[in-house]
């Protein structure tokens, strides 16, 4: 047991959690108050939508694709959420369902023509942004009350964002890592030919994964407006890069279907917490942007220690 716990494999799996813990520890060192119910609630609120978007990205990465449109897609769903969903709920739900369907179609297209997902999703990012600008030409709108109520939930003992992250991580873990169809989905990333030879439809796996990504993108957009209470087409532009970084930080790999939902959640939380840490360390204005890079590097450098052991 102890041998297993100190084995490189276990350490690598624990890495995302360790990175997150270390950042939390340093924050505690700067401001013990921040690591309280209220502090954690404040610091991690915006991690919830990022976590959801990161999971969406992870689904796509599982089948060896990459989604460069998730940021603008989240922006679009946020805009729909703050306008249609709030004004005419039925229409809003239909519109959001259409968004998910569009994701499914993109997945099907990529499979059908064997296209590089990077270009297709890059193109789609313009499409989503364009629709968002048409739906909501200038920022505004209001989030439906129930969305705000959910995001403002005061859970007992443990702050809502942590509960939410845990629930997301566990649900997705069971769906993708433990369920029997999840095996097929991950297998489609590991060796698509083998999955095809065993009689499964690769088209279906692509569509399921893109659909799941679209669904989580919608959740992310709604969670976001639940916090901001208003929409904005550009609200999540940078999610695209951050979600990719989150998946990788969580131990995922670009190809081969090697992903970890819990790792991805922790990766997203780490990325959300890093700027918070920076806020506490009085850094001169010029170097604030750089400091984020520096902290990321230091956190990631932990890998060396583990990889050294492995070598």
């Amino acid at each position, binding site marked *: 047991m102890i041998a297993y716990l100190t084995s490189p494999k276990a350490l690598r799996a624990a890495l995302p959690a360790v990175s997150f813990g270390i950042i939390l520890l340093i924050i505690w060192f700067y401001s013990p108050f921040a690591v309280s119910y209220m502090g954690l609630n404040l610091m991690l609120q915006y991690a919830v939508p990022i976590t959801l978007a990161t999971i969406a990205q992870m689904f796509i990465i599982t089948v060896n694709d990459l989604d460069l449109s998730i940021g603008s897609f989240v922006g679009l769903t946020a805009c729909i959420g703050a306008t249609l969903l709030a004004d005419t709920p039925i229409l809003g739900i239909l519109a959001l369902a259409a968004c998910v369907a569009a994701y499914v179609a993109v997945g099907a297209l990529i499979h059908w023509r064997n296209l590089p997902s990077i270009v297709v999703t890059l193109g789609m990012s313009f499409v989503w942004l364009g629709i968002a600008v048409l739906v909501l030409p200038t920022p505004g709108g209001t989030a439906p009350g129930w969305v705000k109520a959910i995001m403002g939930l005061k859970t007992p003992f443990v702050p809502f964002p942590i509960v939410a992250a845990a629930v997301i991580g566990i649900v997705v873990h069971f769906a993708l890592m433990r369920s029997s169809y999840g*095996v097929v989905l991950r297998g489609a990333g590991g060796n698509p030919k*083998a999955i095809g*030879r*065993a009689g499964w439809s690769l088209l279906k796996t692509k569509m399921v994964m893109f659909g799941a990504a679209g669904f989580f993108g919608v959740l992310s957009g709604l969670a976001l407006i639940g916090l901001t209470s208003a929409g904005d087409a550009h609200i999540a532009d940078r999610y695209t890069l951050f979600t990719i970084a989150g998946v990788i930080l969580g131990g995922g790999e670009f190809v*081969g279907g090697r992903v970890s939902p819990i790792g991805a959640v922790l990766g997203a939380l780490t990325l959300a917490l890093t700027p918070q840490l920076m806020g506490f360390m009085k850094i001169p204005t010029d170097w604030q942007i750089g400091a984020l890079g520096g902290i990321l590097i230091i956190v990631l450098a932990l890998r060396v220690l583990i990889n050294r052991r492995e070598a």
Partner: protein
Amino acid sequence: MERNIVSFERVAKHFGAVRALDGVDLNVKPGECLGLVGHNGAGKSTLMNVLAGTLTPDTGVIGIHGKDLKSSYGVPKANENGIRCVFQELSLCPNLTVAENARIFHPSLSGWGWKTKTGAMITEKLDEIFPGHGISSGDVVGDLKIGKRQMVEIARAFTLTDTPLHLVILDEPTSSLDAITARQLLEFVRKVVGDGLSCILISHVLGEVLEYSDRIVVMKDGLVVSERPAGDFDRNSLVAEMGNVIEMDEISEHQEREKLRGTTAVVVEVASGTQKLQAHQGEIIGLAGLAGHGQTGMLLGIYETAFGGKATGNVNGPVALVAGDRQTDGIFHLWSIAENIGVGSLSRMVRRGLIDPVAEAAIGETWQQRIKIKTPDMNNNILSLSGGNQQKALFARALASDAEIILMDDPMRGVDVGTKLEVYDLIRDEAEKGRTFLWYTTEMDELYNCDHTYVFRDGLIVADLSREELTEEKILHSSFKETA
């Protein structure tokens, strides 16, 4: 008489100019083990791919259980009719565990507890076929060595749930197994055939086919050239049917060379436990033992030492490696055959700072001749080659390079008999010219080509045998010392 499970008539498949199958008839009866042999590129795998539903033939009748399914045949139909295939290039998902890979085969395994169920099922099958396999159902396949991966894939093909199982195709199942495990598998095949299942066994180790199949079909250049009960063949007639006429009788010469040991300079020296691996210039050194006992690790250590990574010993001279696990260690799947060969000799092809396409083509042509790579055009993609021919290309890569020390990681996987003998000659010639070979092999016969053999167990050298001392018993004895 029972109906044939498979009855193919005039099945043909062309890839551009290559006639992989040129009108093949094939029958498989219930409860028989059908041996399928043929030179590299004869069309065996193509035929099996058609049977497994992964390739659609251009023409021909696909009779399964007495019905012609030509138009609708595909993977789902094959599954429905209880036909499973262990492909030559393995078809496992490296990111999944052993149990998860087994689940892929059985859509009905789902719901709560599927993981336990599947794990038990595959472990049971592994225990049944390969006692003492040392694989856990929770192991991630990518972490397993190629031999173990092959065991998993074989065991998986024999697992049973609610779909029927009539025929298991084994396309070179023993190529990455050592002698002991190969025997375990073949005994198992006999047993299930006795129970009424049918198997198709493809192998280049003719002894296996002769001993374990009921009937043998010989293929040559996309055609079936002979089909008889196994008892009607012997090794020589089989070789003759395949179109090769060479036989081996060079053992005496080798004993001569063995006496030279020590007269040339030591080019490789690596300590291993209490023993020491030593290779002199011009020697052919065999690395023996059961698969996965540190032979590949030794070769990689030497390779890394030569390239200035870590220093595990002394290596004097440039090295090249012939990979055995061609999919992960050898092939550049986007490149042509010529490029795959040339990559080992890049610096020699440079003229005035640029790689000279003429020189590259020349190297390709030379080696196509010397090692008989079966292709109409060396500019074709490497994957258009049959498995054995891909392996030959990797051989050519190493031999074409200017390396003086050649490391071979069980390099004959899937190479046909005729070519093997030619390659043995080639190796001996090159050794005469001063090249040194370190040759890991799982085939006993190949060790007789070596001047000196080291036996590995648990990652260490446990025996050091000269050519005269070499016997199968000694090797087996050393490989199993602990348990014996």
